[in-house]
């Protein structure tokens, strides 16, 4: 974050933080360049983009709102199943499929949010886990609809806008995921810089004071929770459409845990942590976990412990500290 001049008024500061800085375009340059430089890795690339969108959705509630949740995969999974079932039973049109995914996840978000956000701390955490488990059990037993443990079979996805067909090299899937991620980023960037996002930060930092100045805290959190659920649902829908398969793992605890880890490794509460964290995690996992999954679990655990003890703020937090040191030297 660039430090504003000391004499700037609060309004100027808010406007300055909203203005697009050149460095914010860096992820997009890299993403577009990756399309041309690594044509063999496009399927992995789409997965990375999808996980970035998922991590972004988590950043809104966890990074900005301070809601410690371990159940974000509930919305990812609902979105994936909604998009999948829609394509099997209604239509293979992908864009309307994403809308269906977003709506389904948002509905689950509102309902579960009404319950979950009444509590705090350990109880809240446990409820987020329980909602995910509840949905997983439901998906497992409703096998006439979801395919149960075998996964949802028989998805066909039509060409996007009737023109761009999904190819076996994953080119269309990559571009499609990239465009959706870009739109999701625009929405979330807009939100977190708006008064809405600022009030979320306020709630994270000091709930009591936000209550005292008249912020409708629970309603604000519920709104954020629902928007976040919808974005996570879109990410899930994207995964379903680009892989043309939905399995029970979309709802699993592992996915919730992994996305929290990605966000924290990158840096929570700053939008771009999701980009760095998800990309690093997915690429490292692709390289290491295939060879030795046990080894992977151990190092990811150790990394988490070290980040918490020594590098709160993740990779971006470390970058900030480095920058500060460099500036002081000058």
């Amino acid at each position, binding site marked *: 974050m660039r430090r504003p001049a000391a004499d700037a008024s609060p309004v100027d500061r808010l406007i300055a933080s909203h203005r697009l800085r050149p460095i914010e375009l860096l992820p997009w340059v890299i993403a577009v360049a990756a399309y041309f430089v690594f044509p063999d890795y496009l399927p992995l690339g789409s997965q990375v983009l999808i996980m970035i969108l998922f991590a972004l959705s988590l950043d809104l509630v966890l990074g900005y709102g301070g809601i410690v949740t371990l159940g974000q995969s509930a919305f990812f999974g609902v979105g994936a199943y909604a998009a999948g079932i829609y394509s099997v039973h209604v239509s293979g049109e992908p864009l309307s499929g994403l809308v269906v995914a977003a709506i389904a996840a948002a509905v689950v978000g509102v309902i579960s949010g009404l319950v979950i956000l009444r509590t705090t701390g350990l109880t809240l955490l446990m409820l987020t886990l*329980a909602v995910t488990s*509840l949905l997983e*059990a439901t998906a497992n037993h409703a096998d006439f609809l979801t395919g149960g443990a075998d996964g949802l079979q028989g998805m066909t996805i039509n060409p996007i806008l009737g023109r761009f067909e999904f190819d076996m090299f994953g080119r269309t899937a990559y571009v499609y995921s990239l465009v959706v991620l870009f739109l999701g980023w625009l929405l979330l960037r807009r939100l977190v810089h708006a008064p809405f996002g600022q009030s979320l930060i306020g709630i994270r930092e000091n709930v009591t004071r936000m209550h005292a100045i008249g912020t409708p805290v629970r309603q604000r959190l519920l709104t954020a929770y629902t928007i976040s659920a919808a974005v996570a649902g879109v990410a899930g829908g994207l995964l379903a459409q680009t892989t043309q398969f939905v399995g029970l793992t979309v709802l699993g605890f592992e996915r919730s845990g992994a996305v929290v880890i990605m966000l924290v490794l990158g840096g929570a509460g700053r939008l771009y942590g999701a980009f760095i964290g998800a990309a690093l995690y997915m690429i490292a996992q692709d390289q290491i976990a295939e060879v030795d999954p*046990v080894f992977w679990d*151990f190092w990811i655990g150790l990394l*988490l412990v070290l*980040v*918490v003890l020594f590098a709160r703020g993740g990779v971006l937090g470390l970058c900030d500290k480095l920058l500060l040191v460099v500036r002081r030297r000058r």
Partner: protein
Amino acid sequence: MFAATISILFLGIAYGMVLYIISVGLSVTMGLLGFVNLAHGVFAMAGGYVTVTLMNQYGVPFGFALLAAFIIVAAISVVLERTLYARLYGAGELEQVLFTIGLVFMSVAIVRKLWGPLPQPFHVPHVLDGQINLGFRSFPTYRTFLIGVSVLLILTLWLGIERTAFGARLRAAVDNRRMAESLGINTGRLFSLTFALGSGLAAFGGGLGADILAIDPGYAFEYLVYFLMVVAVGGLGSIKGPFVAAMLLGIGDTACKYLVPQLGSFFIYLAMIALLLWRPAGLFGRA
């Protein structure tokens, strides 16, 4: 019908006892310092592995194996508490959650490396094999033994907390930590001791219930929701609340799995959510 009800109650109580012994330490840790320790299940898992390994490989009797599990895990947990946990007492909830999840990941990997991915075979000792006649009907001996030991243990625990000086200090610190410190109670040492006791109990419970909660590398994640449920429904910091919650959960879960095997866990989660809607702070929690 009557026989089935008795069986469900019996199995459910045994299950609930194990859940309570494992979870009670977590409740006290939460109440004392508000520390969200998601790695609590690791101590139960470690206890299970120590017990099973001692019994299967070294022929140690069940009772001694359980004691060894209690002592070893309590000792390890104190070291962890002093060197790592203590650094995060003032930290935010997210940090504590991440840190303890990191510990779970590491321990799962270590356990898988050392013992392999398969569940550990648990052979009920010969004395506890078969059925025992309790006058009006016979019950499985192992589970009867389990309930008996648990009841003794829980009564000792409750008496200890109600009647000893240590228990009085502990209750004072849970009620009001600052006031307790002002009165000269060394809450840091008190917490280390309590942490060790809670972890040791979890290890004991993990070993004792090895036949009910299977000992495998996924243990710490698989049953985490159950341990958290016991604590959240019982009420943070309460000693007796989690007992009621554990009994409800044990009996409810057993009944659901018996009556509607397809949707067993589904109803349990639903009931728990409804209960927390009614009382967000848990049954015995202070709002």
